[in-house]
């Protein structure tokens, strides 16, 4: 199996996996981060309580997360086709990955922001800070280590989803594992792809943990 073509393919598909994971995580944050922020500030004891907005966001976050990813992938085919012009390949996979990950990220962001001490928020209010300032400087500033830890979890999960997307022609390492390992009984290739996926998750986790440690000033050490 260690011929040049296979190795080149594995390298290429690792790149594809990384491309899908990082791009969809990025877009998922573009949607999920503001969504998480709005969940926190529109909540009953938030800065701008708004029961209707909160309920709507809360409902969306729950419903999308409760649809299994593979089903969502199928359901979104028309939408994917509308956005990228086709429904297969790595770029097309980014659409359902983003849709699936955004509410998940919104919840991660929400829980990170809720960890921020209410007293500090109150202190900022007492200084005359606007909601915008409080969101940027207090919520995001104070929760940054937790947000990075959350992003690490999100990356790992999206990487897993992207492998699943391989089943429907998404490309990437998951695709390789299914085509070679499952359909062609090439167990060795399947093992290699799994090892590659594990290594990718380990690297992402390592970087994430390191960054969040470095940025955390709450400890006396």
């Amino acid at each position, binding site marked *: 199996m260690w011929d040049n073509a296979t190795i080149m393919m594995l390298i290429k598909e690792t790149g594809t996996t990384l491309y899908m994971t990082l791009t969809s995580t990025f877009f998922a944050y573009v949607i999920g981060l503001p969504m998480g922020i709005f969940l926190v500030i529109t909540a009953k004891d938030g800065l701008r309580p708004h029961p209707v907005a909160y309920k709507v966001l809360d409902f969306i976050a729950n419903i999308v997360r409760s649809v299994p990813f593979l089903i969502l992938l199928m359901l979104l085919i028309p939408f994917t086709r509308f956005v990228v012009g086709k429904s297969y390949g790595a770029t097309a996979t980014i659409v359902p990955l983003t849709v699936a990950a955004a509410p998940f990220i919104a919840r991660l962001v929400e829980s990170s922001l809720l960890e921020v*001490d209410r*007293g*500090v928020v*109150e*202190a*900022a*209010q*007492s*200084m*005359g*800070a*606007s909601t915008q*300032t409080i969101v940027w*400087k*207090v919520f995001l*500033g*104070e929760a*940054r*280590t937790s947000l990075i830890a959350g992003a690490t979890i999100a990356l790992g999960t999206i990487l897993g989803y992207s492998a699943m997307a391989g089943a429907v022609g998404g490309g990437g390492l998951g695709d390789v594992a299914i085509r070679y390992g499952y359909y062609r009984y090439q167990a060795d290739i399947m093992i290699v792809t799994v090892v590659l996926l594990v290594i990718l998750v380990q690297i992402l986790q390592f970087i994430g943990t390191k960054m969040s440690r470095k*940025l*955390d*000033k*709450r*400890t*006396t050490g």
Partner: protein
Amino acid sequence: METIIQVKDVGKTFIGKDNTVEALKGINLEIHRGEIYGIIGMSGAGKSTLVRCLNFLEKPTTGTVMVEGKDLAALPEKELRQARTQISMIFQHFNLLMQRTVLDNVCFPLEITGQKKKEARVRAKELLEVVGLAEKAKAYPAQLSGGQKQRVAIARALANNPKILLCDEATSALDPTTTKSILALLKDINEKYGITIVIITHEMAVVQEICTHVAIIDGGELAETGTVEEVFARPQTPAAKALVFQNGGHYEEMKGKRCIRIVFKENSSFEPVIGNMVLECKAPANILLADTKDIGGVAHGQMILQLPEDEILAEKMIHYLKEKKLEVEELDNYVG
């Protein structure tokens, strides 16, 4: 003196799912420029809610709050935020930004008012000098002690040259020595910059230490207001009495009407007659007057005691004193 904060008929009701709590009822307060005004009450009395009504972190359900002649309820949001930059606040748990250095914490309110970064840093350094923490500028709050954190919070509170400083249990998380030094700093600030200070506390010692005026709050209502001397010398209400005597523990009013005069002539000065009597009878007697002297080891003089209501106990005491060879004389209608 000019009124800086005027609270009129303020009430605050919290509506919960299955109960409503009337945290404040008909509060009227007037605080003048330059005063150090203590608001004292037991926990749950509503004092924290009241202080939050002064900068509208809590909006009162009824009544008005006027700060420097402006009705806070009438201000549009932007102007309210503007007004808040002039009403600083410090907290029991300091509420510093844990991910920022001490210097950046002090810069925070200056960022809010839109000052240039460079100027903000210069100002923040000055303020850290004022609170005696210049050498900690680069440290993070987690590396500081409680007293130091409160000093940073005070520096931060002073950044925008406020007219008023609200202190919500600012010394409650600190040990007695640190409390003293923080109170001294507050007093200093009051004198130096003429900032009006409102102090919320449950400790009478804090009020005694620095306040000029005091309001006693009990069950959401103001029980008493006045200068500290007045309230201390003559607490009128049970709530005031409970707070004034909080260090002396419980005290029960003597109900007995029977008073006696005892005369010391030949007892040894070293014999604690009254103390022994109290121990023997296991009931208190109230000393209304004592005028005794030690002359060459012999006690001379007189005392007037108020005896307990219980007849048997009173008789027992009289009997005890007579046994100790003291002259005992019953007094009718003694008025001290």
